[in-house]
C-alpha cells in the first residue's frame, strides 16, 4: 500500500517536525501532515517573528541611548510596518528551513487537515494513510480571548498576537491583557515603536510564574520606561467601539477607567483537540482539556502518542522538541532518557530578559525546603557596566545541605543565553560548587552566574 508509513505525525510545529526528523533519522518511514506552513505557531506566528520584532525594539532603544556612548543618530524614527515585514521574511526563511529538513530526512509531507481514525489510520481529505507503528498527535494550540467579559477577539480593536504580528503600523495606544511571556514581549515591542502601553495582569504581579524578585525587577524597569503596569487588576467591563475600547479595571479595590485604540489579548491558549478524530480513535482528554498521556506520552489508545502543547504544559517549543525526540526514539526501540519536566527552562525575551529553571523562592518556602539564596547584580559586573546593561541579576537557590541547585532566576539582557549553564548543571546534578569551580572568562556577564553560586556559599568575590 502506497500510503503506509511506520510513523504518521499530525502537525508540523516544533514537536511534530522534530518527531518526524528523529523518526526518519532512525530509519522509520515517516509522514507529516500539516494544513498550513511548516513550523507551526512557533516559526510562523510565535517565537520566531516576535524575536525579530523584539530586536527591532532593542535597536530603537540603543539608538535612543546612543548619545551617551558618543554616537548621535539624530531623531529616532520607527516604522512598525517595516519591522513587521522583516519579521515575516525571518519567519518564511525558518519555515522553508523546516521544509528543507523534511526533504533532507526524506519525511513525506502531506498537505491538508489530518483526521484520526481507528487502527492507526489518518484521513487527509479523501486520502487514507496507515501507520504501522504509531500515530503521533502534535496539533498544538491557538490563542483564545475572554468572551465572558465582552472581550471576544474581533481582529481590529480586540486582537491577539496573531493579528499583532501583521499590523502595518503601531497603534497609538494599547492595553495588553495578561502579563505572561506574550504580554510582556508585546508591551516591550509596541512601547519601543511609540505606542502608549498599559499592561494589565489579574494576578498580583506581572510574570506570575517567575520568581517574585524577577517580577519586581521587570515592574520597575517597565514603569521607568513609561509602560503603565496594573497588577492584581481585573477587567470588569469592556466596551468595544469601532476604533477604541473602553475598559473598566478594578485594582486593589479601586476602580478606574481606561481607553485604548487596541486591546491585545495575551492571556491563555486553547489546545487544538477539536475535529481531529480523537473520539473516533478512542483518545481521551484529561480534566484540563489536554490529551491524556502516560509516562511514555502514549494516549489512552495504544499506538497513538501525543506531544507538544496538546499533551500538556509547559506549552513551550523546546519542551515539544524534546517530547518529539523521546517518542521517536521509543518507537525505534531505543530507551531515551526520561524527560525531567522541572528542568525545562522558561524564557521571556522582553528587555531585560527573564529566564529561569527549577523552583522559585516562594515554591521553596511552600515546600518547606531548607535553602540558601545566592544573588549577584549585573550592576557589579564589569562587562555589564561597559555595555550599559546593568539591569537585573542572577539568583541561585541552593539546597542548604547538599548544594543542589533548586532553582535559578536571571534578569538581564543575555538571560536567555545565560540560563543554559544552570540547565546543564541541573540536568547533570552539579551542585553550586561545580558551577563555581568552572573557570568563567573575564569580563563576561556569565561571571555573574559563578558569583551568584559563590554568594550562596558565602564566598562572593566582586561584591
Amino acid at each position, binding site marked *: 500500500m502506497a500510503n503506509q508509513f511506520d510513523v504518521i505525525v499530525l502537525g508540523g510545529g516544533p514537536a511534530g517536525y522534530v518527531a518526524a526528523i528523529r523518526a526518519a533519522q532512525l530509519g522509520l518511514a515517516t509522514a507529516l501532515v500539516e494544513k498550513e506552513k511548516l513550523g507551526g505557531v512557533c516559526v510562523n506566528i510565535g517565537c520566531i517573528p516576535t524575536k525579530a520584532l523584539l530586536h527591532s525594539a532593542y535597536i530603537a532603544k540603543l539608538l535612543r541611548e546612543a548619545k551617551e556612548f558618543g554616537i548621535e543618530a539624530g531623531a529616532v524614527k520607527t516604522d512598525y510596518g517595516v519591522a513587521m515585514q522583516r519579521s515575516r521574511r525571518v519567519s518564511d526563511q525558518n519555515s522553508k528551513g523546516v521544509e528543507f529538513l523534511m526533504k533532507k530526512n526524506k519525511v513525506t509531507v502531506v498537505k491538508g487537515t489530518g483526521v484520526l481514525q481507528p487502527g492507526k489510520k489518518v484521513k487527509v481529505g479523501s486520502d487514507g494513510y496507515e501507520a504501522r507503528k504509531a500515530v503521533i498527535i502534535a496539533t498544538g494550540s491557538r490563542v483564545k480571548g475572554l468572551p465572558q467579559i465582552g472581550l471576544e477577539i474581533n481582529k481590529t480593536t480586540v486582537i491577539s498576537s496573531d493579528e499583532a504580528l501583521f499590523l502595518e503600523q503601531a497603534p497609538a495606544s494599547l492595553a495588553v491583557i495578561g502579563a505572561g511571556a506574550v504580554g510582556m514581549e508585546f508591551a516591550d515591542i509596541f512601547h519601543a515603536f511609540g505606542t502608549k502601553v498599559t499592561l494589565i495582569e489579574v494576578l498580583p504581579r506581572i510574570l506570575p510564574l517567575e520568581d517574585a524578585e524577577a517580577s519586581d525587577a521587570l515592574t520597575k524597569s517597565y514603569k521607568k520606561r513609561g509602560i503603565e503596569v496594573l497588577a492584581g487588576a481585573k477587567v470588569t467591563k469592556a466596551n468595544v467601539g469601532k476604533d477604541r475600547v473602553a475598559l473598566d479595571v478594578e485594582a486593589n479595590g479601586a476602580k478606574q477607567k481606561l481607553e485604548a485604540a487596541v486591546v491585545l489579548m495575551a492571556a491563555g491558549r486553547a489546545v487544538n483537540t477539536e475535529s481531529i478524530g480523537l473520539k473516533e480513535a478512542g483518545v481521551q482528554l484529561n480534566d484540563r482539556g489536554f490529551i491524556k498521556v502516560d509516562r511514555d506520552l502514549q494516549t*489512552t489508545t495504544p499506538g497513538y502518542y501525543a506531544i507538544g502543547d496538546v499533551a500538556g504544559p509547559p506549552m513551550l517549543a523546546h519542551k515539544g522538541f524534546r517530547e518529539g525526540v523521546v517518542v521517536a526514539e521509543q518507537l525505534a526501540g*531505543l530507551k531515551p532518557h526520561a524527560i525531567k519536566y522541572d528542568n525545562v527552562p522558561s524564557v521571556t525575551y522582553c528587555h531585560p530578559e527573564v529566564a529561569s529553571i527549577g523552583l522559585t523562592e516562594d515554591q521553596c518556602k511552600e515546600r518547606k525546603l531548607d535553602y540558601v539564596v545566592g544573588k549577584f547584580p549585573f550592576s557589579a559586573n564589569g562587562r555589564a557596566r561597559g555595555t550599559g546593561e546593568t539591569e537585573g541579576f542572577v539568583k541561585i537557590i541552593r539546597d542548604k545541605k547538599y548544594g543542589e541547585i533548586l532553582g535559578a532566576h536571571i534578569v538581564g539582557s543575555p538571560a536567555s543565553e545565560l540560563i543554559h549553564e544552570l540547565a546543564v548543571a541541573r540536568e547533570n546534578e552539579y551542585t553550586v560548587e561545580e558551577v563555581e569551580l568552572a573557570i568563567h572568562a573575564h569580563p563576561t556577564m556569565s561571571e555573574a552566574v559563578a558569583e551568584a553560586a559563590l554568594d550562596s556559599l558565602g564566598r562572593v568575590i566582586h561584591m
Partner: protein
Amino acid sequence: MATTVFMEALSPTMEEGRLVKWHKREGDAVKVGDTLAEVETDKAIMDLQARADGMLRQVSVAEGQTVPVGKEIAVIVAPGETVGAAPVAPAPAATTGSGKRETLKDSLTVAGNVATAPAPPPVAVAAIPAPTTADAAPIKASPLARRIAKEAGVDLKRLTGSGPGGRVIRRDLEGVAVGREAAPVAVPAPAATFPVSRVPSPERTGAPYEDVPLTQIRKTIAKRLAASLGPVPHYFLTTEVDMERAAEAREALNRELGDEGRISFNDIVVKAAALALTRHRACNAWFQDDHIRYWNEVHVGVAVAVEDGLITPVIRHADRKSLREIGLETHDLAQRARNRRLRPEEYTGSTFSVSNLGMFDIDQFTAVINPPEAAILAVGSVAQKPVVADGAILARRRMRLTLSCDHRVIDGATGAVFLKTLKQMLENPLAMLL
C-alpha cells in the same frame, strides 16, 4: 560522525540483554544492517544490527555479559575518524582489574588476532584511566549523588545508576536517608539494583543450597505470572469431552496425509477453540485497565515448553486456517521457539491461549492466564475411560478441558457457554465444517 551502538530493546518487554556472540570484532568494517552480535532477550536470541557504516570500535561488553537496554556497548566510527576511538595498543594489563576492564582487554586482544581486519587508523589514545585495582575504578556518579552518598555513608560502587551510561544520580539514592540511621551495611551485592541491600550474607562454606541467577526468560515468566495471579481474578471451569469421533477423524486424516505432516489432538483443539471463539467474542478479549478490547480476529497462542521455560507462539487467524495449516505452523513455530529463533511478532498479540500437557499424561490442570488475554484453555491427555452410556459401561477416549477465565471480563455463565460450544465441536468434528 561516530554512531554509538546501544543494547537495543529487541522485544517489547526486554529490559536487559545478554550478549551471546559478537559477529563483528573490534576494528571490523561494518555496513548498515550487518549483524553485529547475537543478543539473548527475555524471549529469544535476536540479531543486533548495525545502524551505520564504518568500523566497529570500543567494544565494551564481552560475550556472556548482561547489560541493561540503552547501555552503550560499542561505537561505529567513520573510516579515518579518530575522536574517541579505542587505543591501538593494549593498555598495561591489570592484574586484579574489574570486570569492565578485562572486557576492554579481551576485545583488544581479539582485535589483534583478526588478521583480515583492516589496520586501525592512527588514533589518539583515549583517556582511559588504567586502574591497578578494582577499588580505583572510576565511579560514575553525579556530584550531587556523591555528596548525598558521602553524607549517608553509602558506597557508590554498590549502586546501579539509572542515569545516562549507568551514572548514579540522586534518584538512585532515594530511601538512603532512612538507612542512614541504621549502621551502614557493607554487603557484597553482585546485582544490587537498589541502594543499600540489608540482606545479610551468611559467609559459610558448605552452603546448603545453590543460588542460580535468573535467566532472562525466567525473569519474564516470574514477572508475567505474578502479574497474572496477583491482580487477575481467575476462576476455572472444567468439562470432559468425548474424543472418540475426533480421534477417528484424526486417524482418517493422518492416513490421508501420509508423510506430509500429521495432525495432532492439539491442532484439533486449537482449531475448534478458534471457531468457538468466533461465536463467543466475550472470551476473545483483552482486559485493558480502563476498557475491554473484544477481538474480532482470532489469534491463538500455543504454549510451548522450551529448555529454560515456556513461550507462546501465536497462530494468527487460527479460525480461518485448515487443520493442516495449523499443524504445520505450530510445528514450525515450536521448533523455532526451542531454538530461540522466534521474532517478537511471532509471540505477541495472541487473543486467547491454549496450553496442552496431555503428552505428559496430565489428566487435568489449570493454566495461568497470559495477560491481557481474558482466558486460557488447559488441555489434558486423551485417554480411554469407562463411560456409562445407555445403561452400559463403555470404554471411550476422553479428554478434560479446563478454561481459566479472568472474571473481570468473562462471567461464569459466559465461560460455560463457550466451553459447551467447544465441547460440541470436538464431539462432533464435522460441525467445524459448518
